[in-house]
């Protein structure tokens, strides 16, 4: 990537075809709505498809505040998820 601020990609690979590509990044809860709305807007301007996966830590009360934010941003979370059941050790906060 030539410019990580704008997302500009190296000119020499612009004509290459890829079967799939994954973009992963972290975003604070207070900027999640903005990030999701941007994805919504971009989705109207591209000639391919992309899926969106939202990974969140479960709150102490067992809830996921990010799901409500996603709904407010116009997304419909699917009923099926990937749930890390918490058996791995050490936990992230212990590392």
């Amino acid at each position, binding site marked *: 990537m030539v410019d990580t601020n704008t997302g500009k990609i190296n000119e020499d690979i612009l004509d290459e075809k890829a079967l799939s590509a994954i973009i992963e990044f972290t975003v604070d809860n207070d900027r999640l709505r903005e990030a999701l709305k941007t994805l919504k807007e971009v989705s109207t301007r591209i*000639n*391919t498809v992309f899926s969106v996966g939202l990974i969140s830590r479960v709150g102490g009360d067992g809830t996921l505040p990010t799901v409500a934010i996603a709904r407010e941003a116009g*997304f419909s979370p699917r*009923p099926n998820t990937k749930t890390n059941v*918490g*058996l791995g050790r050490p936990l992230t906060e212990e590392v």
Partner: protein
Amino acid sequence: MESLSEDYVMLIMPARGINFDGSEEKMRQVWEVISRYEGELANFGNASNGNSHRTTMEVLKKATSWIAHAVFKDRETLKACLRELKERDFGISVVISGLYEDVGELCAEVGLSPHTVEHSLGIHGNTERLPDENILEITTMCGHAMVSPNLVTHLVAEIDEGKISCKEAAKELSRMCDCGIFNPYRTEKLLRKMTTGA
């Protein structure tokens, strides 16, 4: 939605840099636990050793593997396996794909508190380029896109012509997913709805 209640994928893997070193023997023991439920599984395996059409539990119990996949078609078997994994306390991450509310309830019944959850927020962009929803319901069971929509269409035609059964077609599609997370049991039922076949 209904068919998802017969499709729970368990993924177990150590994390590089965290608990990867020395996990070979633990992963063999993980396979030992999973093997006790083999008769009720829809599929199992991993990309290195192959899916249940190419490998066996006996091979996996002795192999060096960094990922274990097991596909459960019923909640109670999944619960029993999860409870056993909790009791064995391998310290290796376990992720379950399936209906969020069911998995949450199941965790509570076993005495686990989920750590992290990934929600799918759908597919976006020029979705007119996607195959039919019925076909996507089958092909997306393989996260690496190894199950071709064209193969589904071809097999649906073969079923309608009476050349192949829904069960045989589901097995053929399942064979394509090396990791062993594709669910032929659920696929057979989906194919029955899409065709006139038995």
